[in-house]
């Protein structure tokens, strides 16, 4: 009898661990981590000394809403995910979690995060997070099936987190805050184009409209160069608005030019996938170093 109960308890704890693991995977931890960093940077860059307790609450609440957005994105894309080798093992298509659980997990987490941001931190932080959440789940996600232009729409929720951090500290926004937003807005286009070029055939097989498959790889390469040039220009806006000093200008210019060089090399690269992979890997440290440098030289 006791053996049977023990076995039952073991099975139950295994089930719990399996569901908990699936829920964590549902939040796309890598994407969520990146959002946490950019939210914290926004809070640090805001005028005045950042209040640590407020920073922690903002970051945790924003993480909850981002996790919810990712869970609902996986809920909405479960049919497409089941068709691609890379995403077939995600919690819903692999059957580790039911779509209803993912749906309610996302809904409850989003509401909880927005309540904390709006009532404990500042309503503006809550409003910005709400706009990011809704535009990601209800505009960008469905638009991905229809048009390659979804990439550009998706950059808006992706760039809002520094504004959430900024608003959490000041309760307002400024041109300086918008310049930090603009860097992230433009940065995402070459970053996601690199992924789209790298995985073009996969997306095509799954029936997703992505830029390189719709407009062609040469057009995508030209867009990477154009947006890398725009990124260099935009990255020099914060010093004009009182953020970052000369060290920042030097670092941002050097990294911006380096990214343009990598982008231009794509025109003659013999191996497309290798170039796209390299570009993707180059964009990640770019953002971290540029934002880090901005934060370190914050007034």
């Amino acid at each position, binding site marked *: 009898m006791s053996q049977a109960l023990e076995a039952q308890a073991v099975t139950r704890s295994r089930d719990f661990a399996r569901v908990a693991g699936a829920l964590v995977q549902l939040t796309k931890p890598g994407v969520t981590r990146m959002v946490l960093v950019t939210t914290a940077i926004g809070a640090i860059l805001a005028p005045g000394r950042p209040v640590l307790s407020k920073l922690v609450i903002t970051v945790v609440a924003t993480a909850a809403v981002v996790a919810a957005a990712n869970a609902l994105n996986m809920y909405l894309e*479960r*049919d497409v995910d*089941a068709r691609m080798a890379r995403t077939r093992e995600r919690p*819903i*298509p692999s059957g580790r979690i*039911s*779509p*209803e659980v993912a*749906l309610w997990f996302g*809904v409850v987490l*989003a*509401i909880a995060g*927005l*309540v904390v*941001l*709006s*009532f404990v931190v*500042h*309503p*503006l932080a*809550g*409003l910005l*997070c*709400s706009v990011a*959440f*809704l535009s990601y789940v*209800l505009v960008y996600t469905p638009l991905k099936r229809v048009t390659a232009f979804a990439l550009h729409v998706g950059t808006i929720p992706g760039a809002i987190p520094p504004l959430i951090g900024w608003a959490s500290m000041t309760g307002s926004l400024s041109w300086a805050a918008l310049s930090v937003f603009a860097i992230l807005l433009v940065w995402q286009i070459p970053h996601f184009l690199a992924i789209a070029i790298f995985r073009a055939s996969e997306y095509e097989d799954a029936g997703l409209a992505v830029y390189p498959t719709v407009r062609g790889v040469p057009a995508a390469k030209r867009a990477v160069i154009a947006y890398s040039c725009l990124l260099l220009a935009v990255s020099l806006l914060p010093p004009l608005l009182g953020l970052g000093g000369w060290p920042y200008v030097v670092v941002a210019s050097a990294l911006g030019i380096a990214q343009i060089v990598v982008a231009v090399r794509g025109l003659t690269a013999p191996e497309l996938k290798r170039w796209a992979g390299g570009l993707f890997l180059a964009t990640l440290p770019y953002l971290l170093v540029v934002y880090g440098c901005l934060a370190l030289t914050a007034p």
Partner: protein
Amino acid sequence: MSAVPPMRWWAWGLLAAICLAIPLLGYWLGR
């Protein structure tokens, strides 16, 4: 694949309304 029917459009609309109402309520209560 799941045979779960897609969430109704009005349910997504309701979620959007709730998400926007929360910060607006925060503003209203904080006045």
